[in-house]
């Protein structure tokens, strides 16, 4: 797993690449905690996210709680159908707005 970060409009733009397993999810969690403390609005590009286990979902939940506490925005885009299914089974589809593209994510009405 690797993570890349950029900026677009007022959003931090994060790309999570590869496989998030319980072996590397602590690394992701630490990164997202730090991100959640310094940023208010975050878009996450999941187009190269191949796999995520429950511990990875836990890391995303930590970020979501930090962002919601300061009334920020957290949106995901380009999530593969397999991972969308994992979100649905977990109930996470109700927590994370998922968009088909970066354009749709950045232009969405809050």
């Amino acid at each position, binding site marked *: 797993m690797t993570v890349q970060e950029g900026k677009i409009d007022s959003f931090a733009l994060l790309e999570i690449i590869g*496989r998030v397993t*319980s*072996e590397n999810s602590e690394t992701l969690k630490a990164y997202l905690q730090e991100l959640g403390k310094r940023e208010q609005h975050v878009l996450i590009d999941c187009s190269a996210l191949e796999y995520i*286990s*429950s511990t990875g*979902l836990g890391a995303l939940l930590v970020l979501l709680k930090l962002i*919601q506490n300061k009334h920020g925005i957290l949106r995901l885009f380009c999530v593969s159908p397999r991972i969308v299914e994992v979100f649905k089974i977990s*109930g996470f589809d*109700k927590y994370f707005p998922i968009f088909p593209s970066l354009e749709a994510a950045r232009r969405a009405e809050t």
Partner: protein
Amino acid sequence: MNADENMEVRLPNSLGALHELHAVVVQFCRRRAIHPDTEFKIDLALDEVFTNIVRYGYDDQLSHEIVVRLKGGQNSIRISIEDDARPFNPLLAPEVDVDAPVAERRIGGLGIHLVRNLMDQVRYQRRPVGNRLILIKRLGKEEN
């Protein structure tokens, strides 16, 4: 049954072994031309079971062996995971509240919730020492 269609792997109780577990799942599924969606589900379910054993199964710092067997049938895949960990039946664990509001949502228990929902059957067997979990995944729905 062709012996080549069955696989067994003995892994140490370390999250570092997840790589090897993933490689075994990929090899098993590709050899049988199992649909990638089904492979993804088997991969994830095994990751969750293995992780729970490694994280919560042992009170000591010793090295333990976890045995994973994958067996291919005509219509289903049967996976067993055996450990020598303390007795734990994950099927008796409380269900997670997937409808909880974000602020109250906890991540504990989500792994076994995923396993139950990704697999078609999950069975638990207490062994004289340790546990055996059996996962059954039917083939067909995604295969068409």
